């Protein structure tokens, strides 16, 4: 599904460069449920952003679906993201002026789907995350856990090949975190490839495979 080969990433900080990823080798195959672990600043988000086509890398290679991803222009990347990737963020990042249904339907809007179709589809996914009855609530009328469920529905609605989640439970309390992880897990059960970034041990234990990053390198891989 995706493969990183000797991947390097620098952040250019004025006079000096910050070498964040120092040669990552990694493969994630279809249907996997992977967590990326590591202390804060170890480069987890950086790696996920590269995998998610939100950022470039400096050297090495990144294959997504056997296609080498290198220096894509913004438009190509946008279309690729829309078709193959789903994102879940730590702070939910729902659009505050849109209700749950409209938020979930948004990726389909950018795919060019008509209003009726995309609302039907969005409703299906709201049902999947158990929030069909909150379809017309604005984000601020939903709890954190509910917002993250809506975000998950939005990540899934375009039927992406991979769902990328950066600290999806970072803003939630423990119980809610577990509920969200169970939901994600159940989605993986249906065959979806999922990558979760976290720095919490208990969260990573709920995934099938833990990839531990340390100092910009893959330190350890643990199969749960």
């Amino acid at each position, binding site marked *: 599904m995706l493969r990183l080969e000797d991947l390097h990433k620098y952040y250019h900080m004025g006079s000096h460069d910050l070498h964040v990823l120092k040669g990552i080798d990694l493969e994630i195959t279809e249907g996997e449920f992977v967590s990326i672990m590591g202390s804060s600043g170890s480069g987890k988000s950086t790696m996920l952003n590269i995998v998610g086509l939100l950022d470039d890398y400096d050297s090495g290679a990144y294959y997504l679906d056997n296609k080498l991803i290198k220096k894509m222009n*913004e438009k190509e990347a946008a279309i690729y993201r829309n078709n193959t990737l789903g994102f879940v963020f730590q702070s939910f990042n729902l659009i505050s002026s849109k209700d749950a249904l409209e938020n979930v339907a*948004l990726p389909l809007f*950018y795919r060019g789907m008509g209003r009726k179709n995309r609302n039907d589809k969005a409703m299906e996914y709201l049902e999947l995350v158990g929030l069909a009855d909150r379809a017309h609530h604005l984000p601020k009328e939903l709890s954190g856990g509910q917002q993250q469920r809506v975000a998950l529905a939005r990540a899934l609605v375009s039927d992406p090949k991979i769902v990328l989640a950066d600290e999806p439970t970072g803003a939630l309390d423990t119980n809610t975190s577990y509920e969200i992880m169970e939901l994600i897990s159940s989605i993986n059960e249906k065959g979806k490839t999922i990558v979760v970034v976290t720095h919490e041990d208990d969260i990573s234990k709920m995934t099938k495979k833990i990839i531990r990053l340390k100092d910009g390198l893959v330190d350890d891989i643990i199969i749960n």
Partner: protein
Amino acid sequence: MFDKEFILEIFTTIRKNKLRTFLTGFSVAWGIFMLIILLGSGKGLENGIKENFKGEAKNTIRVFGGLTSIAFEGQPNDRHIEFNNYDKKIITENIPNIDLLYARYDIELDIPVHYKSEYATLAVSGIDPSTKEIEKIKLLEGRYINDWDIEHSQKVAVIGKDAKKMLFRAKSPIGEIIYVNKVPFKIIGVFSDDYAPENKKIYMPLATAQKIFLGGNKISSIAMTLENITPDESKTIENSIKSKLAKRHNFSEKDERAVLIINSIEEFAKSQKLFRAINIFLWLIAIGTIIAGIVGISNIMLIVVKERTKEIGVRKAIGATPASIVKLILLEAVIITIIAGLIGLLAGSTVLEIANGFMEASNTAQAAASEFDENMTIFKNPSVDTMIALNALIVLILSGLLAGFIPAKRAAQIRPIAALREE
């Protein structure tokens, strides 16, 4: 692309951010309101000035007989060129673009005029009905001489307001009989003219005057107004009148004195230039106001883009292309501009319409109060015609695009990772 979806998308945003939309739109509505008021006022000013200098605003050509100054084809110089009805016919039939035309016969002597025991010596002219329009003669009482009077050589007269005072004092002269050179004439009207000496005259049908004062078919001058022509065309017409008359009366076309042609086109061109200058000036002010509006919208949109950085980042992350973001912001700016602008347009036209109503009322009141001429209007019928409205609409759309341009570019440059990282 899927434009309907986009517009629905934008309307959703607009509806959910009413205050922001209002603030954004207000400056444009105000700008367009000012544009309409200014341009409408400009139109009003133009109409008002035209009203006051009506004679000058229209192209009038007057032709008088003169004295030849060049000997030509065996004819000596210092020969009088005199017109008659045939000259009128020639000009009427051969000159294009004539709107109105009259010929007149001014009797050179003062004529004794009686009314009952009153007596005066007055100037008399035989005229055509269109003297009224061409010379802007105001009718104070009764009616003016008409075509029927001319055709039937009626012995009717309209009398200048000063002549009327001499013969009738405060009394109404309509229907009274006066004796002009011992010939009875029925008074049908009283007129007033801005050119004071005319007010001491008695006007009668041209044919009647020619018959009674033994003029045969003589006329003293011909005047005409020309419709919708440029100064160049007017000059051409002036030359062709001259050459027609030269051929008929056998004088040199180079003769500057054989006939006297007075063409108002110079004045006309001058006033046209003035109106154009006023209009350009008003447009400049209006454009200034609109630019202020654009800057206003642009600034607010920039703040909006900044506020929506995260949202735009999210949109990009889930598949919005830079072009679609540009489109979103640009269309939002254009839609807000157009709606706000139309409101401003409507408000502006309404205010003009109301002002117009007031002015018309006060003008008629003024006209009624002052019995005589001099009803000076600097302002008349301020209005927005379709051209102004259309121009305003184009200005609107352009300003919307302009206002949205920088914010849209800024929005397109937002990088999702940067947008999503900041809390």
